[in-house]
């Protein structure tokens, strides 16, 4: 299942509706919905915030495959932004040393079973897999 979404945080409602429609159509257990929506939002909102000059839309494809959900986001951007680079977060730090941003990719890397990034001909492609066990 594939869809394109306007590059705007306001599109998140449509992104979540897309995920719910996929879950219903593929009869995926709803217990996995939160994790997939969270990862999808973090990646999509990064594309909105850090590639403002990009094309009007971002493409999302979702597939059920080998006991897992595989999600792919594609975007055209001038420079690569590798989301698989480790994003350490000191969760034991006292509150005064905790930043209010920078937690998104840390959570992405916590919630997925695999995460891949490629950059070819100006197109970033992010693929993540969440197992359904």
């Amino acid at each position, binding site marked *: 299942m594939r869809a394109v979404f306007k590059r705007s*945080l*306001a599109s*998140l*409602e449509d992104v*979540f509706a897309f995920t719910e429609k996929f879950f219903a159509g593929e009869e995926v257990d709803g217990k996995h919905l*939160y994790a997939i*929506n*969270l990862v999808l*939002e*973090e990646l999509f*909102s990064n594309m*909105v915030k850090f590639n403002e000059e990009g094309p009007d839309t971002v493409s999302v494809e979702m597939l059920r495959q080998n006991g897992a959900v595989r999600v792919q986001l594609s975007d055209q951007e001038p420079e690569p932004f590798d989301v698989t680079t480790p994003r350490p*977060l*000191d*969760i*034991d*730090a006292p*509150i*005064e040393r*905790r930043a*209010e*941003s920078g*937690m*998104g990719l*840390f*959570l992405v890397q*916590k*919630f997925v079973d695999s995460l891949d990034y490629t950059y070819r001909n100006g197109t970033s492609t992010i693929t993540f897999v969440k197992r359904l066990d």
Partner: protein
Amino acid sequence: MLELEHAGDGRVIVVGRLDAAEARKAQEFLDGIDNPRELDCARLEYISSAGLGILLRTQKRLMAKGGRLRLVNVSNHIRDVFRYSGFDKIFDIVGVADSGQ
């Protein structure tokens, strides 16, 4: 869709999804309350890193004045997000199961 309500005595009820699209609304609401003490999450369906940032900023503001925000009626999914991000060390968190609901 996100709704927030100040139920009095520093108690705030949050309903819906606290995502990147709703973060500003939540921040403005919480900034407008002098001393929020408790966030009732019973009807909070979802929170992402954008929402975590709002809660963290609010907690910093309160702690600077000697206050503290407590998160109550937290669902298991949201509790996982709090735990992964270390928020269980920053906030007092009471889960749905803990409160017997």
